[in-house]
């Protein structure tokens, strides 16, 4: 049995990026995310950016504390990656696109 979603190339990735305003971290996170998605999930991803400054109530549902937070809504289970997503390897691990190394 394989458990990685990466083994099913047809699977759709539904991603949400939580930010609060156009902070440098938020801008960086979005750029990094776009780049990673284009390289690894081309044609099968969607990114919804939620700005909590405009929609403060939405932070509760996904239990958002740290910003920026990337939430992988689909495929399940839900995954969260916090930070500006500057470490591509870790983002790929967090999205289950790379196997987690024991030492990681």
């Amino acid at each position: 049995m394989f458990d990685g979603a990466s083994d099913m190339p047809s699977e759709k990735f539904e991603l949400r990026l939580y930010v609060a305003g156009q902070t440098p971290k938020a801008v960086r996170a979005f750029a990094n995310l776009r780049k990673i998605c284009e390289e690894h999930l081309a044609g099968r991803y969607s990114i919804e950016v939620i700005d909590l400054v405009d929609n403060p109530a939405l932070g509760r549902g996904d239990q958002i504390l740290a910003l920026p937070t990337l939430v992988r809504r689909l495929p399940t289970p839900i995954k969260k990656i916090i930070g500006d997503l500057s470490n591509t390897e870790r983002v790929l691990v967090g999205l289950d696109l790379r196997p987690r190394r024991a030492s990681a």
Partner: protein
Amino acid sequence: MAKKSIERSEIAKAPTGIAGLDEITFGGLPAGRPTLVSGGPGSGKTLLGVSFLVNGAQSFSEPGVLLTFEENAEELASDARSLGYDLQKLVEQKKLLIDYVHVDRSEIEETGEYDLEGLFVRLDHAIKQIGARRVMLDTIETLFGGLKDAGILRAELRRLFRWLRDRQITTVVTAERGEQMFTRQGLEEYITDAVIALDHRVHEQISTRRIRVVKYRGSMHGTNEYPFLIDRDGLQVLPVTSLLLQHAAPDQRISSGLPAIDDMLGGRGFYRGSTVLLSGTAGTGKTTLAAQFVDAACKRGEKCLYFLFEESPQQMIRNMRSAGVDVGRWVDKGLLQFHADRPNRHGLETHLLAMHHAVEVFDPDVVVMDPITNLLAVGTTVDVRSMLTRVIDFLKTRGTTALFTSLTSSEHSLEHTETLISSLMDTWILVAAQLEGRRRVRQIYVLKSRGMPHSDEVRNFSFTSHGIEIEPAEGNASTPRQPQRRSHVRRSK
């Protein structure tokens, strides 16, 4: 020397509404600032914070936000219910908002820079939704278990407390006590306005909760450790030093329940609001005398609270019925309430608090403690004396008349305990039994009674089917009192 004019203005306070805590903090927590509440597991820090929020919402028109990192909402609500708080109702009335913050390290990957702005946005949103003036963070240090970057966390928590202070929100921050520190992560570095420490000690299987105001910037505060109690009516702190000797001394007199004793006390019985010690050896009828006092009070329509440290109420009622005093009927009428507790079930301070509480709830005219000597099982003579001093101050402030029975083991010499305790008492009545021929004769006399002429006689008494009967004590005159203070006493019957 230059003339200094230092303005000593006390800072604004936010009352907690917790009985006693507002007294030892001279008004409550620092308004608009964070207070750290530290304690071990089960020390009651969450309940303190919840009380602060609930009372704020209910009594002081200050809605509150509870940001909990700990329990789920159900658990919290049921804990609060055990204190008589209906959180759900307050939530519906928009006086309280509970946000359950859940952080699970296993589902979070960290990469690159982040901050806790999401938490700020949530809190800000919650505060604005209900116009909150109070916030409780319970227990924010849990975040250190959920997020890896302690450096970011520290910086963000520092920012959070500053943020709350800027918004003038009165905040309770609970924290688990660390080794040598008030918090595991050193939050006391950031919260410097006020620190309250809670402690739950179990010594020789006797549990005592204590509270101490460690620090309170810009304000006076009681520095002692104060006992506190958590029960179905909430959390209460007992400030021991705030009670002063300034209670009223009523002139009204009330019957002891036995005309003969009233006669010995200048013909009119005890002063209302005074304290009476009834001491004697085993089987001399102390409880029966106490029961007659209670019976008389209830007949006058007064309320009596009877603390039993030896027997169960049922046993006491049965025994008294056989002695001809039916106190059970007063229980049915709601005039008499018993509180039976084994002394060694708690520490003295817990007993003290329980008594305070029972008195406050029932609001009796008369209180009996039978026998106080059993309290020596959980404390030294000095401890018991200090506890009784507090009980007596408390009862006197309320104008409650109190009768304490005391069991002495020796027939003739008064014990050290007695001497120590008796100085607290206004009236001291002794009962004793002596062998006369083949008969055990019971005797009663008044050793002292402040503020009234009283008899020096030693009178014999006996048990009858309708209670105690005191005989005239003719020719029984071997007493130590000065003759000029002797009063004329009419004999009853």
